[in-house]
């Protein structure tokens, strides 16, 4: 199981791993990113007085008394469901389309219980035709509903590529702004545990060029709930990438309502020596490597970019200007992945601030093999990250 970032105040690991040790609570100071005014007003994401940009909910002051901490503990898939449920309560136009999302509750239980609560008109089980139920969501969105399309596995949404790129992304533009398409397209992707090549796709690579859509990737229960809510409230089509192996992460999240920004990155660990940019599951491999690096005397700054389209160049830029070295760790393949785009973007905008060429660690350009050991070596491991940082800092 992926290495887990324990939220402060939670002492027991809910998911044990035989490969990676759970983190010790005190080794990771949690940082609040500064609230800053964003020139673009995004509905519902800024609440007066709420600090919505906290990286992790609870703070480091008193980690021992778990029971008296505010907030509640839950797993990532439950956080997604909570966000979904709150939005469905709040707005009767929100509905869910997908395979087995209704009475079955979804293959990863994200929609469990929702069909019983809202009826099967709002949580709709569709036949197996991804292009068509995505097309249906486009049609429903143009007529006033706010549908959420669940791909049972993101890879299946390749069948819906035509509808997503030519219609979802374009109709707002080609109709001259007359029709809006406020859909959310979500589902689990990424490399799992021996799921085979077809079920280990990283769609963010393929979708990143489509004009008109936004892409975000969640990695913790806190940001999963916040991003889900933000995506539902957004007027643009948003693709929310979840990861198959992160659904059982446990964290304590606030009881109060909060919505995160779709365009912001998350500062996971501030540092001075090198900027490590990552997202989704690789965040945990990076933090695992960070522990080793700290022991070796390095001070890496880790940023979970979260927003895959557009990139939060403000946060990333500030970090580059501070550390002058960049390492990108991603699960996408080397060719045409998010890392490739991000490298180009940083080179273009912050070239003068770089002391060394950007290093990008990604998966190889191969379909993911089934055999466990082979699969492990197509994914970037903490040891590789440590080596890369050491080499980067030598230059």
């Amino acid at each position: 199981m992926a290495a887990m970032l324990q939220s402060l105040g939670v002492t027991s690991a809910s998911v044990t791993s035989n490969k990676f040790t759970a983190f010790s609570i005190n080794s990771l100071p949690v940082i609040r990113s500064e609230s800053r005014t964003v020139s673009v007003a995004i509905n519902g994401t800024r609440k007066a007085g709420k600090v919505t940009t906290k990286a992790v909910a609870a703070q480091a002051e008193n980690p021992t008394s778990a029971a008296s901490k505010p907030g509640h503990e839950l797993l990532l898939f439950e956080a997604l469901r909570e966000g979904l449920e709150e939005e469905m309560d709040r707005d009767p136009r929100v509905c869910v389309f997908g395979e087995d999302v209704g009475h079955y509750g979804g293959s990863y239980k994200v929609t469990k219980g929702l069909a019983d609560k809202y009826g099967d008109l709002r949580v709709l089980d569709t036949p197996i035709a991804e292009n068509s139920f995505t097309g249906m969501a486009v049609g429903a969105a143009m007529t006033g509903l706010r549908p959420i399309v669940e791909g049972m596995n993101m890879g299946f949404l390749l069948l819906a590529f035509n509808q997503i790129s030519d219609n979802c992304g374009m109709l707002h533009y080609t109709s001259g702004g007359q029709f809006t398409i406020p859909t959310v397209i979500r589902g689990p992707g990424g490399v799992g545990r021996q799921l085979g090549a077809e079920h280990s796709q990283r769609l963010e690579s393929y979708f990143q060029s489509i004009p008109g859509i936004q892409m975000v990737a969640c990695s913790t229960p806190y940001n999963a709930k916040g991003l889900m809510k933000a995506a539902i409230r957004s007027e643009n089509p948003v693709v929310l990438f979840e990861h198959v192996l992160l659904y059982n992460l446990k964290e304590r999240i606030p009881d109060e309502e909060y919505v995160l920004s779709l365009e912001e990155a998350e500062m996971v660990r501030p540092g001075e020596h090198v900027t490590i940019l990552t997202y989704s599951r690789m965040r945990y491999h990076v933090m695992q490597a960070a522990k080793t690096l700290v022991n070796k005397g390095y001070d890496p700054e880790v940023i979970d970019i979260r927003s895959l389209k557009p990139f939060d160049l403000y946060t990333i830029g500030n970090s580059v200007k501070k550390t002058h070295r960049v390492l990108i760790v991603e699960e996408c393949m080397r060719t045409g992945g998010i890392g490739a785009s991000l490298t180009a973007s940083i080179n273009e905008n912050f070239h003068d601030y770089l002391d060394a060429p950007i290093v990008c660690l990604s998966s190889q350009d191969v379909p993911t093999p089934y055999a466990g050991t082979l699969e492990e070596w197509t994914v970037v491991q903490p040891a590789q990250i440590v080596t890369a940082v050491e080499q980067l800092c030598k230059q």
Partner: protein
Amino acid sequence: MALYLPFLRRRIGFLGMMNSTLSNFKTSVLSEKNSITTLSDFCNSFSRRFYSNKADKQFDFIHNGGDSKELNFPGGIVKFTSELKFLADVPEERIHCYRVLDDSGQLISNNFVQVDKEIAVKMYKDMVMLQTMDTIFYEAQRQGRISFYLTANGEEAINIASAAALSMDDLVFPQYREAGVLLWRGFTLQEFANQCFGNKDDNGKGRQMPIHYGSNKHNYFTVASTVATQISHAVGAAYSLKMDGRDACTITYFGDGGTSTGDFHAALNFAAVMEVPVIFFCRNNGWAISTPVSDQFRSDGIVVRGKAYGIRSIRVDGNDALAVFSAVCMARTIAIRESKPVLIEALAYRAGHHSTSDDSSKYRPIEEIEWWREAQNPVTRFREWLRGEGLWTTQAETELRDSARKEVLHAIQVAEKVEKPTVKEIFTDVYDVLPSNLRDQEKSLRETIERHSQDYPIDVPL
């Protein structure tokens, strides 16, 4: 008996793996349901499934009887037979075609929905206007004034009569040969011309090719060049109408070629399963660019496919305005009252070329085109009927043709002179608000234009 859901089978292996690897994934895949059913009961209790926002009932197990003449298979009771016989691939006779007027516009039956006099006359006038618009815009493309055009020659009755049978609340999801529907709903000639010229008065802001009209005011969804994608949009929109409980339906048009796509199949299937108020209108005009229907499918047209999906269907004479009107009227009633989809196949002939980029004499004989244009002209047939009813005269005809021509020419002349949209419109509406990367790209473009102003067209305002 295990829970047998065919679409789950593909996933079981994959989910089984998830079960063993995610140690905290407590709930077993199959233990969710505490009562086990056969798929037929599942389906039977779900036949009224999508009708409310309330929670659903539990479903019970029904025992199979000991009768050996029939069996309660998944999907329903099926009787057995000893005959080893295959269903025919080709029927002896094609499904009959509903018609009200004969070739010369005389009524051959009284079995049709009566049309109000004013509506009938408006129908005719709009059919003539559509013809005129098509002719003149086509000529304008040939003169190089617009870049592209696509006519509805031979399908005027399909366009106008179907539009006339609907209400303004019904949502239209067109393919591209249904400008007449928009014309009926009140889109002005000037608006048509503005879209074709892509000027700043175009409500699409100059972003699409000519004939890709769209108007939310008229409930006409913007034409997209992708074939048959609008069919699933129509189903989704019908679904939202059903959720709202509105007294309206959606209608979607597509050609014979469009029925070969995956979107067509899945959308019809969905609509039947979910029971939504949508009218599927197929314009079977015999040609998909250069592909004749015999190369497109081997079924008896499209009408027989309705049965395959469990959808009521009808074949009508697409050149008969009264027949089309009646069929769409009835279809609308069925769709809304029963919240079920309906399939209409209108047989017609594409009397013009596919578009201005096509010369159909290359793949079909000119005599064939001429014959259909003269002998089966929908406008002529309807006119003869109107004349017989005393609603139309030769004088009115001449006046109408003259004024229509003048109006269209005027609209073109005006549209040609209007400015194009500004450079700003390249970047707006991609998202609801302009994000930083697009702001940077706009700035960069403007700088380039300033630096190399001689390389950029002078009639595009900045």
